[in-house]
């Protein structure tokens, strides 16, 4: 279950130059939601949009391509997208909801469907859940510390952040590139991430991330019947360029390696929680 159930996996990128311009990697999420919006597969999508503070995401319900474009790119700190799940069906009146999120957020979405305890009339309105690969997340204050204290850049001057090749990268509007080893960022990680046993959003309809694919491309797992249907239609409509995952470097081996590392490390944390005290333990959420 390291990579979850999936029907197919490819390397892909959006065929839309405008989307690619501000995308983190292959622009998969933006492109797929834009296509689904256009085709009426979804009425709107819950995405991590911009807020008043630089690099602090705010969950928004995007109902236009312009709103999707404004939300492009990874912010590496908390965007509680699930908070809008019920609201999207109420104030926004969506019958077919798209939502993008981290593996834990996909877990929340599926739990909301199977155990809709506080999610009245939500379960059958989730039309497309796109998951992203995620090793861990940071609080906003952590991102401030990483970018301003360690990378020595003002948050508002940063145009892109990236994690790759063992480093955290901050690119600025004046062309400076700051990089620090990921070792430094580890202590700033959100504690709740350390019990997560999913790297590639196993429970999403479609999940995507940069790992495994060449620069500017993304790896895409198509996981469910819903995902398969949307993905096939989007490909047929010419939304994406694709390459066989077996033909690209570094390929699935790297995805498997990182997923295994995450799960193994976090399973250890879970195990350690059981005997954290003396003859006492902390809660295991997976029971």
């Amino acid at each position: 279950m390291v990579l979850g159930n999936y029907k197919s996996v490819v390397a892909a990128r959006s065929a839309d130059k405008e989307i690619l311009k501000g995308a983190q990697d292959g622009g998969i999420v933006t492109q797929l939601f834009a296509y689904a919006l256009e085709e009426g597969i979804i009425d709107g999508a819950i995405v991590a949009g911009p807020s008043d503070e630089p690099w602090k995401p705010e969950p928004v319900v995007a109902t236009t391509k312009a709103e999707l474009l404004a939300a492009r790119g990874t912010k590496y700190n908390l965007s509680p997208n699930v908070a809008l799940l019920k609201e999207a069906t109420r104030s926004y009146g969506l019958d077919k909801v798209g939502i993008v999120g981290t593996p834990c957020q996909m877990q929340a979405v599926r739990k909301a469907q199977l155990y809709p305890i506080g999610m009245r009339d939500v379960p059958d309105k989730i039309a497309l859940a796109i998951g992203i690969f995620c090793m861990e997340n940071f609080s906003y204050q952590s991102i401030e510390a990483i970018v301003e204290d360690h990378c020595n850049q003002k948050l508002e001057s940063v145009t892109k952040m990236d994690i790759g090749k063992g480093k955290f990268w901050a690119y600025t509007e004046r062309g400076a590139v700051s990089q620090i080893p990921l070792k430094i960022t580890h202590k700033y990680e959100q504690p709740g991430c350390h019990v997560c046993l999913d790297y590639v959003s196993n429970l999403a309809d479609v999940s995507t991330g940069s790992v495994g694919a060449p620069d500017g491309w993304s790896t895409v797992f198509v996981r469910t019947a819903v995902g398969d249907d949307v993905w096939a239609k989007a490909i047929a409509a010419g939304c994406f360029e694709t390459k066989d995952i077996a033909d690209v470097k570094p390929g699935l081996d790297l995805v498997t390696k990182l997923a295994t590392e995450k799960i193994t490390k976090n399973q250890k944390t879970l195990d350690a929680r059981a005997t954290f005290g003396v003859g006492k333990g902390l809660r295991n959420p997976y029971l």
Partner: protein
Amino acid sequence: MVEKITVGHVHLSGCTGCLVSFADNYEGLFKILDNYAELVYALTLVDVRHVPEMDVALVEGSVCLQDKSSVDEIKETREKAKVVVALGGCAAYGNITRFARGGQWNQPQMESYVPIGELIDVDLYIPGCAPTPQQIRNVAIMAYLLLKGTDEQKELATAYLKPLMDLAKRGDEACGCDLMYDVINQGLCMGCGTCAAACPVRAITIEYGKPNVDRDLCIKCGACYAQCPRSFFNFDVMNEFEGITELIKGVME
């Protein structure tokens, strides 16, 4: 015709919102009553005066300690029903009735309301105010599969119902503070925002990625904690979400 399970709705101190929520399955309610469950006891719907023997009792509302008939009825329910379900926040956690202090026209002496778990053992909780039609439907289907299904279906139903049964063992107090005590204080919150979506009274906002509960607004329905993916998450069930969704859709058609 496959044998149905027998189900009763026991109405204590509640607002009938739980029963309305059950009815909000619309044609699904008829499907359940036609094929899976015989309604043997329900205020206004079934002409039966005393709690009969039944497989599943759905109890709505808390128990008023000054109302002898309520106390008698919950005890009788425990004796007559194989499975007692606390349907909704009042039965499970006291919910809004926790705030009662008596002095109400026309029974001013009625001032103490407790969730049913303070007087009897409860088998399963369906938290929330009101519990959602979909959650009641899912429990009804799973209860049917548990009692009348094949071995494989029994296994699935057991796995599905277990976390809700564990909630009943966990205790009969709940509020937004549970997020603090059992999720954030435990180092488990990862800021997904589920609790804010689950709250029926919008008492929860997300500040810098973590829940902030307005305790003046919280009604103690237990929805936020129970809906949180870090309160319980059974991989056996969740990984099969596609199949289970299809199964539920199939039996409701």
